[in-house]
């Protein structure tokens, strides 16, 4: 598994150990990209900061909370109405953004008074919201404002409110991953165990590392509820602040994104003895195995199997319709952290695409171990890539599509490679059985967009064909398919609704009475 030095990075030789090509017969013990290190000076990284990781990824999906940044207003860029972690309380956490608006004079004279004034103003402006998280930024960390003391003072003056302080300034780690770590540890130290929940089931879980992107968490909650499982808290998508204070009472931590939230599961295991079960919510087979494992743990495997059978029967013919049309298409799987391993094997197996490259912006070496293991031979794995390396990789690999964030995604478009937003999705949710079909549909729509076909022609030099007229996706995708597949009555395109989340919110679930206990005679 040779290390790979991009031509564009020859002037930054340290970059060589951040990329490998998975070779024939080679293993993880032969080569592994370095990871979670400070970005090398001179390489223009695509990473976020530790404040971003703490607030924008993990903190803010909590739905019933005022999320206050103690710093310049610019730190809240990329929050207001741009994130897609929705919630069932009218997206309160997305609709309003708060910052103390620190300026130069506060750097000189301190900003604790300003912070206190902002906290009180915000609680008064939203009298129904009694919970707040305050996020430290580089500016407030460097001047040494004691945010915890101010929060404590306000909690004493305003009975009924509760405040969580997250000290994760932007410089607090090599990437956003440093912020994930800090907020995990801060939450368990400050808040877990401070609320006693009402237990309503014999089967109680925390659903951890799930951020409800376009409704992912609500899809999974639906499965758990159909199994009669009480989801005590969701860390943190669509999660409630007080529910998350009660995490210590769950019987099992079901962990989705280990990159961002394994820390709290590990600490819950050490402190409360709650086991951690890592699952994959993406892909029919991985999801089925995941539901089955949760069912097995509680002795209710039959309930999981019933859901798996029903959902597979409903959605598999639609997944297979897309698989026939996506077979062999080359994908660069370039997400932030966990999706390279959640998706790498599942999209290859279940959608027929070839993953020619994986990268991670903020993953650790453990994520690369998982991602490389799940790729086929020949895949190029890159840690913390820069824009030029991304371009060089696309020129070398000639992918049909890339899955990445919106910034590198726009770069890909410029060289006429379609992209899907791996972080926030296009037409999600993508989790769950139906969600996986929606993902396949988005891939299909991107690859076979007639608009993209037109973009391959350069009107300044290419001959523009005049004998071809109107094109549709089907004309493009079905051109080389056999008649048997094209006219198959077993396969069909996606037939679900535009919005699949609203109905879940009003759904009622069966009662599963507890098994009768034999009384002692």
């Amino acid at each position, binding site marked *: 598994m040779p290390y790979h030095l991009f031509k564009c990075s020859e002037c930054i030789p340290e970059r060589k150990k951040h990329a490998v090509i998975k070779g024939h017969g080679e*293993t993880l*013990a032969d080569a592994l990209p370095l990871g*979670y290190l400070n970005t090398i000076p001179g390489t223009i990284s695509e990473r976020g900061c530790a404040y971003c990781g703490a607030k924008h990824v993990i903190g803010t999906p909590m739905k019933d909370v005022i999320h206050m940044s103690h710093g310049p207003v610019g730190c809240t860029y990329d929050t207001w109405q741009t994130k897609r972690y929705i919630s069932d309380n009218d997206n309160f956490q997305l609709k309003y953004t708060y910052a103390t608006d620190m300026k130069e004079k506060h750097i000189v004279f301190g900003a604790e008074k300003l912070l206190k004034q902002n906290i009180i103003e915000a609680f008064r402006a939203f009298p129904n919201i009694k919970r707040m998280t305050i996020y430290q930024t580089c500016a407030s960390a460097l001047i040494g404002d004691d945010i915890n003391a101010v929060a404590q003072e306000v909690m004493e003056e305003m009975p009924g409110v509760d405040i969580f302080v997250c000290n994760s300034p932007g410089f607090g780690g090599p990437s956003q991953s440093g912020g994930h770590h800090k907020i995990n540890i801060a939450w368990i130290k400050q808040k877990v165990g401070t609320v006693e929940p009402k237990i309503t089931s014999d089967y109680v879980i925390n659903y951890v590392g799930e951020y409800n992107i376009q409704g992912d968490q609500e899809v999974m909650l639906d499965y758990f509820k159909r199994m009669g499982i009480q989801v005590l808290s969701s860390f943190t998508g669509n999660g409630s602040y007080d529910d998350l204070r009660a995490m210590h009472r769950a019987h099992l931590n079901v962990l989705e994104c280990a990159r961002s939230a394994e820390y709290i599961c590990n600490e819950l295991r050490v402190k409360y003895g709650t086991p951690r*079960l*890592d699952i994959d919510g993406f892909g029919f087979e991985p999801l089925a195995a995941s539901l089955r494992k949760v069912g097995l743990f509680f002795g209710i495997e039959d309930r999981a199997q019933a859901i798996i059978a029903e959902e597979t029967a409903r959605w598999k013919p639609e997944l297979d319709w897309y698989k026939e049309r996506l077979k062999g298409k080359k994908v660069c799987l370039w997400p932030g952290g966990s999706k390279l391993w959640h998706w790498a094997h599942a999209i290859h197996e279940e959608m027929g695409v070839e993953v020619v490259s994986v990268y991670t912006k903020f993953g650790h*070496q*453990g994520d690369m171990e998982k991602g490389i*293991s799940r790729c086929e031979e020949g895949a190029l794995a890159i840690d913390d890539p820069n824009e030029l390396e991304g371009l060089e990789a696309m020129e070398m690999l000639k992918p049909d599509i890339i899955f990445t964030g919106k910034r590198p995604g726009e770069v890909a478009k410029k060289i006429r490679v379609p992209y899907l937003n791996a972080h926030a999705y296009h037409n999600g949710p993508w989790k769950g059985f139906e969600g996986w079909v929606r993902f396949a549909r988005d891939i299909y729509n991107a690859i076979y967009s007639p608009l993209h076909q037109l973009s391959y022609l350069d009107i300044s030099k290419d001959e523009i064909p005049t004998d071809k007229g109107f094109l549709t996706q089907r004309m493009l995708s079905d051109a080389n398919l056999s008649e048997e597949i094209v006219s198959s009555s077993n396969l069909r395109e996606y037939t679900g609704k535009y919005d699949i989340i609203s109905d879940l919110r009003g759904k009622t679930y069966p009662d599963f009475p507890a098994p009768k206990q034999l009384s002692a005679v």
Partner: protein
Amino acid sequence: MTEDLMKERIAQLVDYIMKKCLWQFHSRAWDRERQNAGILTKTMQILCEEPVENQTPADRCYWVDAVCLADGFRQKYPWLDSMDKAEIKILMQGLKDRIDFLTITGSLNEELTVPLY
């Protein structure tokens, strides 16, 4: 069974675990040792029809991964049915040694020895 055949079969099982499982990649060496031993021992016990401890929460968590792994192995590798229990034990010990090497002793992951989570 020849040594080469045993090696080939272990390689197939390793590939299955690497492609479909996550439990082998916990973040620290001591975690991985515990995970590999817990799950692969129980998988061996299931395949050899031996009793399996699954009463404590931790054991139960290993057990669910072991049940799914044993089912997956049986489904994908019909040659398992032709092996007797003594051979399965040798196979599973070889598998554990290989997984331990790839994820712990031979791993290039520099975070495995970090003292805290």
